[in-house]
């Protein structure tokens, strides 16, 4: 108990210290408030956005894009990871192509997707899918490969069909790997949405940030960043809770 409260005190101290230093330095013009803004201004701007409600349609757009790319990317990644993880031959055949595709910096695809899918949400979703897919794919692939052969053999002896093997053995076994990739994927899905919006859109947090940048409104840029990171942390918490429930067999309470 004492330990956790001292950890919390340390965490608060670091955050408060950094914000305070920023505030003081900017107020005394040691750093130029025009380029660095001030925590108090940024807080006020976020509060204004939330109270007036102007931020929510933008946030909604960004989250919808991130959610769609997350869902589609996870579905495609898990499916491909499963199929290639089970077929050694196919995995060897397509391996160089996967390496090549994964080597493309996602951000250079943004202009192409804008041309293909237009300025609406789908160009952002496409960009997000290309990032989420590979993270989830590699982890699922590894998870399926990682299954203890004796678990598969035992299930086969007990009469499991290929479908039952997938459902009762492979998927739960890969789940730990998949979950470890979900935290990262959510972050990337949101980044992709914002980058896409930044490059060309009429809605979304990325659009808000681009607008603020266009008029040298540093406070607006930082306020956009604060809103985004808050959302990412909250969503991450949700994933952690789901993970703790689904993987509860890993650290069950001791007996008696």
């Amino acid at each position: 108990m004492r330990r956790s409260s001292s950890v919390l005190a340390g965490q608060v101290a670091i955050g408060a210290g950094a914000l305070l230093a920023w505030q003081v330095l900017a107020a005394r013009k040691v750093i130029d408030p025009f380029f660095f803004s001030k925590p108090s201004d940024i807080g006020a701007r976020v509060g204004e956005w939330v109270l007036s409600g102007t931020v929510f349609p933008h946030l909604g757009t960004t989250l919808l894009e991130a959610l769609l790319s997350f869902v589609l990317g996870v579905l495609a990644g898990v499916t491909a990871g499963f199929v290639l993880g089970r077929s050694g031959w196919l995995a060897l055949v397509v391996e160089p192509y996967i390496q090549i595709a994964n080597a493309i910096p996602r951000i250079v695809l943004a202009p192409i997707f804008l041309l293909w899918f237009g300025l609406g949400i789908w160009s952002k979703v496409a960009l997000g899918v290309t990032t989420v897919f590979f993270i989830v794919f590699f982890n699922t692939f590894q998870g399926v490969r990682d299954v203890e052969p004796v678990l598969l053999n035992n299930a086969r002896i007990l009469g499991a069909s290929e479908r039952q093997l997938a459902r009762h053995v492979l998927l739960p076994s890969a789940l730990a790997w998949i979950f470890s990739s979900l935290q990262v994927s959510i972050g990337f899905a949101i980044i992709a949405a914002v980058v896409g919006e930044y490059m060309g859109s009429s809605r979304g947090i990325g659009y808000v940030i681009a607008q603020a940048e266009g008029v040298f409104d540093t406070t607006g840029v930082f306020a956009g960043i604060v809103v985004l990171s808050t959302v990412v942390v909250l969503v991450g918490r949700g994933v952690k809770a789901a993970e703790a429930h689904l993987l509860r067999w890993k650290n069950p309470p001791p007996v008696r």
Partner: protein
Amino acid sequence: MGLAVVELKGVTKRFETTDHTALQDLTLEVPQGMFVSVVGPSGCGKSTLLNLAAGLDQPSKGNVAVSGRVGYLFQQDALLPWKTVIENVLLGLVFRGSVVDRSLGMTWLRRVGLETFAAHFPSQLSGGMRRRVAMVQQCIVEPEILLMDEPFGALDVHTRHKMESELLGLWTPPQTILFVTHDLEEAIALSDRVVVLSAGPASTVLSSYDIDLPRPRNLIDIRTEDRFQDLYRRIWSDLRAEVLKSYAQIQ
């Protein structure tokens, strides 16, 4: 004793990738309702033999014929760690698409004294308890042939003797058991027949002994009986040379 339910005829098993011959020209018959143990030094292909009988592996040469449903208690832990004890026990029924009767699972768990652990995960149990669950997981689908690969090898000696008694309690002929171990005492105490394999590579059946100790057996005292000791000496004289050979290979 009835017909052979497991029959290996002139079986050779070569692993191409490692260029290793595990079994060479091995012939073995296991009659229905018999408890047959296969003993041999480590690395003599005992597990390979069971994998062939289970159909998990194919022989390079020769014939493997198995008549009846097979259960297989692996040497390693094979319970699914993400399922509770009762879910693991019922797994065979789920896979076979039969009616999943939870109370049947509880009855089996009661027979090994684990009914209060039904809702626990395997990681919460001791090694001996996990073995019991694994045993029950196989037994619930009533396999006609039960293959066992050094099932009690990882347990301490007292837990081990207790589990051996429990195994004999659960075993009801005409069920057939093919049991693999490196422990000759265990093999004699449990079996109707002990088959000695030669040291690997290219192991084959060296000799076979019928164990005519009366049943039911008291496993606590049986090891000190004269007839037991007599059998032990006879079989050990065969096994000893093979064990020495396998030592020589390790060094």
